[in-house]
C-alpha cells in the first residue's frame, strides 16, 4: 500500500520543530506502524540521514514506552491498542498519516517523537506504594482477598504508564493515571493502612507538577489502551473528599 507519513521532527528540546513528509509506496498492511517506521528509519540511516527518534521496546503493548499521537489521537485510531500494536491495515491505501509526540506541558519533547514522562514517576514516588520492607511480609494466604477485589484491582493495575491520558486531556491532567494507581492499591486489604495518606500525597504531588485539574471530559478514558475508566477518578475524588472532611472534623 501507499502511505505518506507526516512526521514531527525536532532536534532537541530547545529547537523549533516542524513536520516532514515521507512517502512510501510498498508498505505492507500486515505490518505494524512502528515496523514501517523502523523500515523508513533504516532507509534514512543508509543514506546518512538522522532517523526519526521514537520510544518503544516490548512491541506487545505492555511496557508503555511507545506513545505517539497518530492522526491527532494518542496511540492512533484503534481503541484499546497501543501505538506498537497498531497495524497499517487500520489506515486506507494512500493515506497521509500524521505522527506527533505526546503533546502536553508536563511532557517536554526530547527529540522528534520522544518525550520526557518523568512526571509520572515523580507522582508515584510521592506515595504510590505499600510501605513494606523485604522480609517483613506475612504468609501470603494470611489475609484473604475476595476474587472480585483482586480482579478489579488488576483492572486498575493494568495501567502501563504510557501517558496517553495526560496527552489527550484538554487540561493536561493525570487524574486517570493517578486514580488507577490509587484504585489498584485502595481495593486491596494490603493497601488500606496508607490509603488516606496515599490519596492526599498523590493528589498534592500532582498539584506541584505542571499538570492540570480534572474536569471529567473523558478524553483520557477514550484513549487509554488498557480500558481504564473514569470510575477510578470518581473513587479518587471520593476518597480525597472523605479524608479531607475527616481531617477537618478532627480539627486538623
Amino acid at each position, binding site marked *: 500500500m501507499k502511505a505518506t507519513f507526516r512526521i514531527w521532527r525536532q532536534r532537541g528540546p530547545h529547537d523549533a520543530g516542524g513536520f516532514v513528509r515521507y512517502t512510501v509506496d510498498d508498505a505492507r498492511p500486515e505490518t505494524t506502524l512502528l515496523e514501517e517506521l523502523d523500515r523508513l528509519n533504516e532507509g534514512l540511516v543508509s543514506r546518512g540521514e538522522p532517523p526519526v527518534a521514537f520510544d518503544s521496546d516490548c512491541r506487545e503493548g505492555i511496557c508503555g514506552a511507545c506513545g505517539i499521537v497518530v492522526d491527532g489521537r494518542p496511540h492512533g485510531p484503534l481503541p484499546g491498542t497501543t501505538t506498537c500494536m497498531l497495524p497499517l491495515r487500520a489506515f486506507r491505501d494512500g493515506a497521509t498519516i500524521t505522527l506527533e509526540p505526546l503533546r502536553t506541558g508536563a511532557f517536554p519533547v526530547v527529540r522528534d517523537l520522544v518525550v520526557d514522562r518523568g512526571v509520572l514517576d515523580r507522582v508515584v514516588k510521592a506515595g504510590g506504594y505499600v510501605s513494606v520492607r523485604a522480609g517483613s*511480609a506475612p504468609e*501470603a494466604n494470611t489475609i484473604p482477598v475476595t476474587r472480585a477485589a483482586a480482579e478489579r484491582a488488576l483492572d486498575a493495575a493494568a495501567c502501563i504508564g504510557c501517558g496517553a491520558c495526560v496527552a489527550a486531556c484538554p487540561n493536561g491532567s493525570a487524574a486517570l493515571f493517578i486514580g488507577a494507581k490509587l484504585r489498584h492499591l485502595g481495593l486491596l486489604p*494490603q493497601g488500606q493502612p496508607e490509603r488516606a495518606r496515599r490519596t492526599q500525597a498523590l493528589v498534592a504531588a500532582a498539584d506541584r507538577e505542571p499538570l492540570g485539574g480534572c474536569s471529567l471530559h473523558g478524553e483520557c478514558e477514550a484513549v487509554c489502551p488498557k480500558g481504564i475508566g473514569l470510575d477510578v477518578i470518581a473513587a479518587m475524588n471520593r476518597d480525597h473528599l472523605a479524608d479531607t472532611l475527616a481531617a477537618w472534623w478532627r480539627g486538623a
Partner: protein
Amino acid sequence: MTLRDAAAPSGPIASRWERRRAELELVGPTRRRQHHVLVVGAGLAGASAAATLSELGHRVRCLTFHDSPRRAHSVAAQGGINAAKNYGNDGDSVERLFHDTLEGGDFRSRESNVYRLAELSARIVDQAVAQGVPFAREYGGHLANRSFGGALVSRTFYARGQTGQQLLLGAYQALAKEEATGGVTMLARREMLDLVVVDGRARGLIARDLVSGTLETHIADAVVLATGGYANIYFLSTNGKASNATAIWRAYRRGAALANPGFVQFHPTCLPAASEHQAKLTLMSESLRNDGRLWVPIRPGDDRRPNDVPEVERDYFLERRYPRYGNLVPRDLGSRAAKAVCDDGRGVGPGRRAVYLDLSEATERLGEDALRDRYGNLFQMYEHITGDDPLRIPMRIAPAPHYTMGGLWVDYDLMSTIPGLFVLGEANFSDHGANRLGASALMQGLADGYFILPYTLGGYLAGARLAPVAEDCAEARAARATVETRLHRLLARQGRRSASDFHRALGRLLWDACGLERSRPGLTKVIEEVAALRDAFWEDVMVPGDGRELNQELERAGRVADFLELGELMCRDALAREESCGCHFRVEHQTEDGEARRDDQVFSHVAAWVPGAPGRGSERLVEPLAFETMAPSERSYR
C-alpha cells in the same frame, strides 16, 4: 588460569543457605550509609535489589536505559511465578521444586544454588502479595495456582497473562518508596558502557547519558549488574527491542568470566514470523499448554484448514512422544519436537514453520468464559495480531529465542570473578542449567534481589578493605577513553549499511547454526562467518548524527557491535560442548529416539570463558558440578 571456587557451603543441602547467612559478616547500620552501590538495570532483579539495599541503609544509584524503571522487559513476562507453597495439596515441597528445576536444567546447574532458589520461592510470593500484587484468587479469597511445563504439581501464581507486569510494578513501587527516602537515586536513560576496575575490584562504571550524550563516571564500593539476557542477539526474539548484552559484555572484556554462553532457550509457543521486516516475535504464554493441545496433520503437505482435519488424521505429537507430561513438557523438548514435525514437512501456515495449539477440547470441558478468565489478554493479543479467534480456530505457534541461561559466571554469593561485581537475574548464569522451566525467571530475579544479594553484598562490604577511589583515577580515565574511542569509531565510519541490517544478518546466521540444533560443521563454519560479518560491520556501518545528543542509532550500533563479538563466543561454547543437554542439542549426540544424550563423564561442568591475553582468543575454564543430593539421571518425561 583457573576459575575461582564457587564457594558454595558444604553439609546438608537444606541448611546451606542458613549457614552461609550466619557466616556472613554484617555491616553496622551507621557504616551502611557510607557504602555506595551502583545497580545497573531496574527490572525485577535490579529494582528489587536496589530497593532492598536502600532499606538496609546503603546508598544506591540505579541506572536504566529506559525512560522509567517500569519499562524493563520483566514487564512482558506473562504466565507466572513458581513457589513451593503446596497450596494445591498435591505433593509440592521445596525438595520437589528443587528436583524439578535441577532436572529441568538437565543437571547443568549448581545444586546449592538451585536448592536455595526453591527454598526462597515461598517468601517471594509473600513479599509480592504484601506489596499489593493482585494475583489471581479462588472464590474463598485464597491464592490460585496453575501448572507449568516440567512439573506434575500446580505451583504457579499468576495475574492473568500479565504476571511480570504486576511483579515489576511491585518492585518499581518499592524502588519509588526508597527514592522518596533518598536512599535510591534513579538515573534514567543511562547506558553502562564500561566497568571501572581498581586494584582488581569493581569500583565503578562509565555510563552515557542517552539524552545529552555526556559520558559520566560513577564510582562506588560495589557494582551490581541486573541487565537481563541476550536472546535479542538473534534479531528476532521475544525480548524487547532494546534488550542487549552490552553491560555484561563490557564486564567480560574487563575480565569477568561468562558462563555457558551457548545455552539459549527457544520458547515453543510464540507467534510465527510473518514478514522480513518484522521487528520481533510475540510470545504466547506457556500457561496455554495447560489447556491447549499441540498438533499437526499426520500427512505431510496437508493444506486443509485445521477444523477440516478429522481427529484421526491429527498427530498430537507431544502427547504421543511424552505420554506422562504430554503438552506440559519442558520448553526445550517442546520446541525441538515442534521443529522435528516441521522438518518432516508437516508444519502449518506460511513456510510450514508452525504447529497448532488447539483449545477446543478445553473449551468443551470448561466453557469459553472460564478460558477467557484465564487467558483473556492473550486471546486479545493473538486476535489483534492474526485476526483469528483462538476459541474458533486453533492458534498457530512456533519456537522463538526467549531466554538465555548463559550469563556472567557468579559464585554462591552472586559475585562474578571480579570481586565487587555482582550479577543478578537473567544476566547471570546461575540457576537454570541448560534449560529454564517456565515461571522460574521471575522467581530467580526476585530471589536474587530481595533475599540473596542484600546479605551477600553486605558480607563483601564488611570484609573488604576498600581504599577511596577518585572519579578521575587512572583506571576510570582509561575506561572512559576506551568508551570514547569506540563511540568515535562508530560515528566516524560513515559506511552504507545500518546497524539493524548487520543485526538481521547475524541473527540469521546464529538461528541456523546455533539455534535449536547445532552441529560441528555448522558451528565451525558460522564462527568464520560471524567474524567476517564483524569485519564488514566495522568497514561499512553507517551511524548518522553525532554523540552529543539523543542518538538512537548510535545506541543500536554499539549494541550490535557487542552482539557481533558475543555471537562468536556463543558458537565457540556450543562447539566445545561435545554433548547434548537441555537446550543445547548437538545432532552428533542424540539417542535413537532423537533425544539429547548427555555426557556426564566429560561435560558435567559449567564452561566459563574469560578473555585471553591481547591477541589471543578467549579461554575456556571449567567449574565441575558435584551432585550430592540428587544423582543425575536421564531426563524422562515419557
